[in-house]
């Protein structure tokens, strides 16, 4: 599903690589925590999977496609198979909840019929039925993140990438978000979540990939955040 082969990423402005010879494999349907301190390379890892950046060395393979050799015009197609959720939600403030979710389908040219059908479905799944007509500013942080997850999941991606999705939320709200991500994972969607939140990592006991200064220092199934914690 996802494979990194000896991936090194150097940014022009920095002498130290953001990722240093990282190799790993993530299977279909896995739930993976990507942990490490700020600047350890988590975001770079996710950016490479989206082909927002190209690796300096090595291969990145997503859904059976080697991204290094992929044509520019094929990138949108790749991204339609990947959903993204961020710490800051990234909702469009002048659109309602339903419009925010529908936007993701409209811009990839889905028929209006399909949109009318799947948007309420996915809103119900994330627990926002009845709030379709609200604006993001009228929602709590947790609800806004649910909208973002609905938007990421509405096109049924093979992979869901979450970059600190609970970073702005209190523990209870975070728990709700994690339950939702688990539920999405159970539909067969691979979930890769970058996080700092050791409570969550420790309580979920899923696979943990740890990066430290761009180097992969730990890859453990059913891991916890810190060794010896």
């Amino acid at each position, binding site marked *: 599903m996802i494979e990194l082969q000896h991936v090194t990423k150097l940014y022009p402005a920095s002498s130290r690589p953001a990722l240093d010879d990282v190799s790993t494999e993530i299977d279909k349907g896995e739930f993976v925590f990507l942990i490490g301190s700020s600047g350890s390379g988590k975001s770079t890892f996710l950016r490479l999977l989206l082909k927002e950046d190209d690796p300096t060395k090595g291969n990145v393979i997503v859904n059976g496609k080697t991204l290094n050799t992929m044509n520019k015009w094929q990138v949108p*197609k790749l991204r339609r198979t990947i959903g993204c959720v961020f710490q800051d939600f990234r909702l469009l403030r002048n659109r309602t909840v339903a419009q925010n979710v529908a936007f993701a389908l409209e811009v990839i040219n889905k028929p209006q019929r399909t949109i009318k059908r799947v948007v309420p479905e996915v809103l119900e799944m994330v627990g926002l039925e009845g709030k379709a007509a609200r604006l993001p500013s009228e929602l709590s942080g947790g609800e806004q993140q649910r909208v973002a997850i609905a938007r990421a999941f509405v096109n049924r991606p093979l992979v869901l990438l979450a970059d600190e999705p609970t970073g702005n939320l209190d523990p209870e709200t975070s728990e709700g978000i994690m339950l939702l991500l688990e539920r999405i994972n159970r539909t067969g969607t691979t979930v890769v979540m970058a996080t700092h939140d050791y409570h969550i990592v420790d309580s979920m006991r899923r696979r943990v990939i740890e990066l430290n200064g761009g180097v992969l220092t730990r890859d453990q199934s059913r891991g916890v955040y810190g060794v010896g914690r």
Partner: protein
Amino acid sequence: MRVNFVLSEVATGLRRNLTMTVAMILTTAISLGLMGTGLLIAGMISDMKEIYYDKVQVSVFLADDVTDQQRSAIEQQLADSPEVATYIYESKDEAYARFQQQFSQQPELVQNTPPDALPESFRVELVNPERYEVIAAEFPNGQNGVDQVRDEGDFLDRLFSLLNGARNATIAVAVVQALAALLLISNTIQLAAFNRRNETNIMRLVGASRWYTQLPFILEAALAGLIGALLAIGGLVVTKILFVDKTLAGPIRAGIIPPVDWGAIAFISPVIAGAGVGLAAVAAYVTLRLYVRI
């Protein structure tokens, strides 16, 4: 392609940067208007060349005290000359009548000119217009009843070089304006892209195609270009009605200046519109390529 979606994005974009949009439209309009004027002048020049060059090339003005004998000798010499294609005789009365007609818009000038002030003349068309010197040599000034031989072609050349200069200056200003318009379009599009960075970022992430993301911006510029072109065409129409048809009515009726007819404006309007829309769209596309990550 979802037409409604794209169009509503375009409308939002134009409204959001209203002042920049207005500046972009006005600069484009001025540039295109000047370009149209240049094209019209160019058309006028070629019309005028047809009017003038085919007619008189050399005028042989006769002295006030010319005798009948001298006059018929000159006529005989013109009729016999192999250089002369045709010639006509214009009497003092005829010259005055033509003068009255030409300057009918300036009655003071006509009133202050006594009917016999204008000389009688032979108007000569040469076989080869370049051979003016030969004719001039045959009729030395101030002798045998000839007052002066004038190369009208020389005068026309100067007139046309003046008109060509006017045309070139107009087009040069149009080009400079076009450059300003292109830079403004580029800036407006950068601003528009910045204003809509949230939308375009999400579009990029969910896998919208490049066209889907860029098209609203390109259409936005093209629409501004079209509005600018329409204003420019409107400007030309108003100029024709208020300036050309009114102020220049006399010379046009006298046949000195060819009229600017609607056909000419109808002919250059699509050129102006095409140039406006095309240049704006290309400027927007290049801007998005160079400066904006989409």
